[in-house]
């Protein structure tokens, strides 16, 4: 099995190289590119499936593989090694499984693009990096994947690079991610200093003996990395812009896999986080705020991909709420269901965009359910799932999160979450309230996008058409999973993961297994919230279409505030980018050129030159001036002598 494990990331790497090589060739080769890439992804999926079977065969086993010693500066040593346990199995199955479907879909979506070999090369390279991220058995291999997915994200966002806007968006994604990565690096340094190692196994053993303050600090630093990669406040600004990339990219990278890397990292480092209650509180707060803020922005977006982008940010916020409540397996559960319904939504949106000749504005859609029935049905199912409609997979995972947030203080007293209180309300209850409110908004804005796109009258210019099978088949598979996964496999899945985790065992169990009275009440409450949101959405965008218009009119300030995304980009521009750029120019023009180079360097040169010029005049060669100088000097010397010579008594 060790060799199989090594092959899993190798498949897409080879696929990437092959497709890149044929990018220079003719059209016939270009057509092959998509299939080669898809084959690599599927191959990787099949291998993962085998590994998963092997893993499940033996209770409590892990599969490890050692590739080579990456570098060592004794006593510090980094192995390029892989680890396949239950958590990695879940992530790998999602990445290769959903990844394969998206590759297949992309064959259709990109069929007219002249540069698609390059596209598929990047896509495969992304899979490779993502697999390194989840399979690495130490933080540094994870970091290789971490930066690698960032690179692929950069390349794919700016894939249509002729438009400078796309290239700018790609660069923004990379740089903002790097801010997070800087935190990640510092966290690693701290852990090396404290424990001497970055291996997960070693770390879990050592962490209990490390100074708690340092644990908290390391946990926060690593979380900064997660904030960057998983688009949380304050670093989420790159993700909406990342929609500049082709839609399959948005589905794969910016919804299903890469952006959940931060959640995965926390699950992987759960031992660290379970010893860092304060850091967890920070995670909980950041997650809650992100979920809320992004949802408010999503409500007023008109670009269908922007709606989905902000909804992704918001759902990631939910995942971090779970993580912040130390319910690590709940968070991963939401990662999985979110991968299904959000990938489906993005590809559904892509199908619409494809069918409407690259139109993304929902105001130009409408009535598409007739023209694109398959897309419509799958989009509908996924919308219900993300809205948390009863018994869809989204309902189970989101409900589990809200329950753990509600219940965290009781379930995990050691976590000390009640330290932070707002007035009389404990932190977790406050977060729970915001989470419920966000759930309501989610149901509303997703219904809004559904209504604007598929119902009413068609408002566009081009004749829309349904997408080919190669695109709709992945949609149907994902929609089926989005609908049924939670109901059919939810309990089994949680059991599976809870068997792997040690820390959140109680939390996980309570979430689904223990059906006490409060739990049931809350469950019913969540159902009500979801249905309420959907109903409002349906009403507002069918019979009562005057309501949203009236709202926009009467709350113009608020509407503007939301349309402009809380002015966050402008705020960063004014507070960070422009001052930094101005400061750099100042450094260059004033400090570097004028002060250091002009005054100090060239100045000293000029001083010597000028001094030489003065002294040169003394050596004029004229006897008379020499005689004059001699006379003056002699006079001065005598004067000095008379003044300073002590008078002998």
């Amino acid at each position, binding site marked *: 099995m060790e060799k199989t494990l090594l092959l899993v990331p190798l498949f897409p790497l080879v696929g990437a190289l092959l497709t890149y090589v044929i990018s*220079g060739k003719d059209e016939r080769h270009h057509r092959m590119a998509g299939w080669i890439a898809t084959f690599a992804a599927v191959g990787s999926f099949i291998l993962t499936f085998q590994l998963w079977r092997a893993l499940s065969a033996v209770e409590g086993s892990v599969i490890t593989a050692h590739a*080579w*010693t*990456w*570098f*060592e*500066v*004794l006593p*510090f040593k980094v192995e390029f090694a892989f680890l396949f346990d239950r958590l990695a199995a879940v992530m790998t199955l999602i990445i290769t499984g959903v990844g394969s479907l998206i590759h297949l879909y992309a064959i259709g979506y990109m069929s007219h693009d002249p540069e698609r070999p390059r596209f598929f090369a990047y896509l495969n390279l992304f899979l490779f990096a993502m697999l390194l991220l989840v399979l690495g058995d130490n933080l*540094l291999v994870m*970091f*290789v994947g971490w*930066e*690698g997915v960032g*690179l692929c994200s*950069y390349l794919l966002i*700016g894939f249509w*690079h*002729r*438009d*400078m806007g*796309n*290239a*700018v968006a*790609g*660069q923004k994604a*990379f*740089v903002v991610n*790097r*801010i997070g*990565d*800087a935190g990640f*690096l*510092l966290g690693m*340094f*701290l852990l*090396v*200093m404290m424990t001497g190692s970055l291996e997960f196994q070693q770390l879990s053993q050592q962490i209990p003996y490390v100074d708690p303050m340092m644990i908290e600090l390391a946990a926060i630093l690593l979380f900064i990395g997660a904030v960057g990669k998983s688009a949380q406040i304050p670093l989420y600004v790159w993700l909406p812009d990342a929609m500049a990339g082709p839609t399959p990219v948005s589905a794969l990278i910016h919804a299903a896999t890469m952006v959940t890397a931060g959640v995965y990292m926390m699950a992987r480092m759960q031992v660290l986080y379970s010893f860092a209650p304060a850091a967890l509180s920070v995670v909980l707060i950041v997650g809650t705020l992100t979920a809320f803020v992004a949802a408010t922005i999503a409500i007023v977006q008109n670009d269908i991909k922007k709606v989905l982008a902000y909804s992704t940010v918001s759902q990631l916020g939910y995942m971090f709420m779970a993580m912040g409540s130390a319910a690590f397996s709940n968070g991963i559960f939401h990662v999985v269901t979110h991968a299904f319904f959000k990938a489906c939504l993005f590809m559904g949106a892509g199908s619409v965009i494809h069918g409407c000749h690259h139109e993304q504005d929902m105001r130009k859609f409408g009535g598409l359910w007739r023209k694109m029935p398959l897309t419509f049905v799958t989009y509908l199912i996924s919308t219900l799932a993300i809205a948390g409609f009863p018994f869809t997979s989204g309902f189970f995972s989101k409900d589990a999160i809200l329950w753990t947030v509600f219940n965290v203080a009781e379930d995990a007293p050691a976590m000390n979450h009640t330290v932070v209180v707002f007035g009389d309300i404990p932190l977790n209850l406050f977060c729970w309230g915001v989470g419920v409110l966000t759930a309501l908004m989610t149901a509303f804005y997703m219904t809004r996008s559904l209504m604007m796109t598929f119902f009413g009258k068609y408002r566009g210019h081009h004749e829309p058409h349904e997408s080919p099978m190669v695109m709709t088949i992945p949609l149907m598979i994902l929609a089926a999973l989005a609908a049924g996964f939670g109901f059919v496999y939810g309990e089994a899945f949680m059991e599976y993961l809870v068997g792997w985790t040690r820390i959140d065992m109680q939390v996980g169990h309570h979430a689904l297994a223990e059906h006490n009275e409060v739990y049931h009440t809350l469950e019913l409450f969540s159902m009500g919230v979801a249905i309420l949101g959907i109903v409002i959405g349906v009403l507002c965008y069918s019979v009562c279409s005057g309501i949203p218009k009236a709202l926009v009119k009467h709350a113009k300030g608020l509407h503007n505030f939301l349309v402009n995304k809380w002015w966050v980009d402008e705020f960063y521009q004014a507070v960070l980018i422009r001052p*930094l*750029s101005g*400061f*750099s*120019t100042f*450094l*260059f023009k004033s400090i*570097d050129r004028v002060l*250091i*180079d002009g005054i*100090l*360097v060239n100045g000293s*040169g000029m001083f010597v030159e000028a001094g030489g010029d003065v002294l040169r005049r003394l050596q004029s060669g004229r006897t008379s001036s020499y005689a004059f100088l001699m006379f003056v000097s002699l006079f001065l010397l005598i004067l000095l002598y008379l003044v300073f010579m002590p008078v002998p008594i």
Partner: protein
Amino acid sequence: MEHLFNLTASGDVVLSLLVFLPLFGAITLFLLPEDNDSLARSVAMFFAGAAFLVSLTLLKLFEVGTPRMQFVEMMDWIPSLGVKYILGVDGLSIWLLILTTLLSLLVIFASTSIAQRLRSYLGCLLLLETGMLGSFVALDGITFYMFYELMLIPMYFLIGVWGGKRKIYAALKFFIYTALGSLLMLVAIVYLGLSHEQQFGELSFYLGDWVNLRFGAKEELLLFAAFALAFSIKIPLFPLHTWLPDAHVEAPTGGSVILAGVLLKLGIYGLIRFAMPIFPGAIEALAPVFVVLGVAGIVYGALVAWVQTDIKKLVAYSSVSHLGFCVLGLAALNMQGMQGSVLQMINHGISTGALFFLVGVLYDRKHTRLIADYGGLAQKVPMFAFVFMVFTLSSVGLPLTNGFVGEFLILLGGFQYNPVAGAVAVTGVVLGALYMLSLYRRVIFGSFNEERNGDLTDLNPREKLVFAPLLVLVFLIGVYPQPFLNRIEPSTRAVLEYVNQRNAVAPSVVAENPALRRTSVPQGPESRLEVVEN
């Protein structure tokens, strides 16, 4: 430290062969007719290629796992002054030798764009190569100084004759700036030689003898300062860096490649080879200064690079930032930092050397280096865009490219030395991505101006051959750096352990050996110059 400096001649002359092959090449060139360019290039290629092969042989024969000086050559050179000709190579220098011979070969190979006086251009390059190789293997202060200064003259001509519009200004500035530093170092070298006479009864400029010298605290600081100033200018350490952008912008492509790829490394190399073992107390005392200046250089260089409009100037300032990393790693005085620092010298030579080659490719075709004059090149020259991307990523230190391992080790070392310094230095990682990617974006992405750049052609076979070995090295070091680190490690460890050990026992050494303690205040070194000259 014994294995480093208690040397016995190995009987080989392979180092001398390596050092003087390029010199023979230069001499041969000057015997050739002036106007036969292809013959001149063939001859230069032959000698540079031979030197490269010799250096590869050295690498093959190089014994791993020992800090011992290898292939040692020793003989008296000027016995009356105690000057010896001592060469040797260890883990610190072996990769720098390979880097030097490789980059020199590539620069000579890529010299097709030199339109005038090619023969002299190649001669200067070969002379420069001898100077660089000699500096990396010389273990005698005077011999080292001679090679060190030998580099100055051909570089001066490279900038001054084949340079751009402000070439005279840049060449003069380069020369005066570096010469000023090295003159102070010469004073210190002479002083050290004389101190040896005073303390041990004979004049010696041999590094192995110098490590036995003991000084008073102030004296050590002053002597160290003289060395450190020379090397800091070479590095160039902020704020002594302003000669670099001017020199780079005006220098021809080959000059820039060698300057950034090899010459700057002599600063770091000199600090580790000479300053650290001779003045362990001073380096420890002044380490905070170097850390601060190194970190300042990282941030400053990156910020200033970000606002450049000239590609070459941007890359030049990025060197200030990258070399800041090297200084930080060195001054952290721990293994991770040192290893990272030495490895990063090689990495910087590869990636920045390649970036200057890339700028040269554009400049040869369009005769402009302004970023604004390009844009959208991915549409016209995809191969160029690909190669540029790889070296950009290497420069920003993406994992699995060469830049990462060195940077990681340096930052880890820096963080262990002082977490705040480490944290500030890490911003260099963010800023590096910022300036390099925005350079890449403005040159490669966006709309393509057919009118202005329509005649641009992609990399020709010769240029591909130039980039091929560098590309291989980017991934080789990135994926499997261990062969590199293995060879460096024993030497850096020996230096570091020696410094630590000396600092641990320093007070007692002086106390227990009164003979080592200075009784008389030495006269100023300037006045001793006459003695030497007699």
